[in-house]
């Protein structure tokens, strides 16, 4: 494996992804990420001369909606998915900037 993920890097990525990893999981993730980067390096080494950049896997563009209201008030159904609700709103731990 050419790409070595440091302990600091895996710690940082864990913070960004809000994941708490055990030491064992960290080692596994370091392996996996290293392999992924190796794969990307391999792709970067390919000759892409004359190949058009692809911005999407499907050769489709311009899929639009018209600006017309289609959805009615289905708050109860939406809130049924909330871990906790109060006064018609999703209830979350107190969050202040």
């Amino acid at each position: 494996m050419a790409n070595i993920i440091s302990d600091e890097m895996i710690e940082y990525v864990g913070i960004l992804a809000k994941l708490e990893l055990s030491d064992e999981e960290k080692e596994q993730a370091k392996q996996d990420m290293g392999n992924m980067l190796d794969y990307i390096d391999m792709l970067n080494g390919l000759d892409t001369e004359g190949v058009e950049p692809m911005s999407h896997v499907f050769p489709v563009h311009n899929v639009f909606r018209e600006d017309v209201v289609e959805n009615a008030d289905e708050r109860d159904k939406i809130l049924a998915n909330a871990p906790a609700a109060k006064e018609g709103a999703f209830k979350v731990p107190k969050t202040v900037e």
Partner: protein
Amino acid sequence: MSIQYETVIGLEVHVELATKTKIFCGCSTAFGGAPNTHTCPVCTGMPGSLPVLNRQVVEYAAAVGLATNCTINQHCKFDRKNYFYPDNPQNYQISQLYEPICRNGYIEIDTASGTKKIGIHEIHMEEDAGKLIHDEWEDCSLVDFNRSGVPLIEIVSEPDMRNAEEVIAYLDKLRLIIQYLGASDCKLQEGSMRADVNLSVRPAGSDVLGTRTEMKNLNSFKAIARAIEGERERQIELLSMGRTVTQETRRWDDNKEASYAMRSKEDAQDYRYFPEPDLVPVVISDEWLASIKARQPELRTQKLIRYKKEFDIPDYDANIITSAKRMADIFEATTAICGKPKKVSNWLMVETMRLMKEHEMEADELTFSPENLAKLIQLTDEGTINSSVAKEVFTKIFLENTDPEQYVEEQGLKTVSDEGALKEVIRKVITDHPQSVADYRSGKEKALGFLVGQTMKAMKGKADPQAVNQILKGELA
């Protein structure tokens, strides 16, 4: 000698677009609904839901780009900006980083030293977040996703501004252009236009940029001006003490007239953007772009030229009337009904402006109808009511959009032109004020004015002052 510093300012302006529905789903964008009544699986980030782009968002964004001299990126696409916050249900915001819809524009502002170009780096489309309400009784926050997915454009300027006056001139110009396009109502107080100020200072004459800070939570022009002054001083103080400015986001507290850093160092701002896989690219063909261009409404500069030609009103009037889209709309609609542009202009410039100031209102809060203003002009012109009654009636129209014909009828405000009735009142005024009569007769012209005033008072303002004047003169001769 102390170092002179120059302030360098760039703005990130978010504007909520005036679409009926959200950017990626068919939920209404209407204001004021009860929490979460305008939501669906897409804008609450439910697993498996897929976004579909609202065509009108592309049209508005391109229209703003064209009106601000941008190059329209005819191949553009969306990216994911990843961050965790409870107002962001997907844990990412769909935005545009690599291929924004507009680039390299500018607008011109008027400054004390002449016209100045302010560069626009880019304009991109993105979705708004929900709203967090902090519960008063329980230790929790409540999330309302009605605003989640409301379409925004973010207009990023170049760091071309040097002081608060230029920033406000830029925002004012931008707001007017967008309002004229009908792309947004751009209300700072209500958050449909939000400006983040990026500011740094550097020794005057230097062409190296200093470390900048980003200031958020600025919801009035006054707050923006104060925040710029406050941040400039804070940075200069740090530098002159030999310290450095930290690149950070700061929140302005307008009550305390101070700002504080919003995020701690542990909270890294690393958004890990990547191309949005759920949306296909947007291709704006030459034909589509041409049709957006062709539908571009008349902007202020063109309006000014037309007003002068078509309505023959003074430049001064045209300038004030076109300074707000709503005002120009009322002017044109009223003139179309009554055909008297100068009179319409007078009502807007004098009484409307006075009442707006008195009630601390903006032009887009005007609610009276052109029909009622046209009727009032008609009533005055016919001599049905006199000018002071007209002012009183206009106040009613301004505040409650009252029908002036009905109101004049109900309140008995018609001018009394019946000479017999007037004469009777005038004779009584003459008898009651012998001193003024004597003064007038001994050549004091002013005394006549007083007697006219007394007559008008006795008539409760409903007489034609000119008729009163004439009859009085006749009676005193």
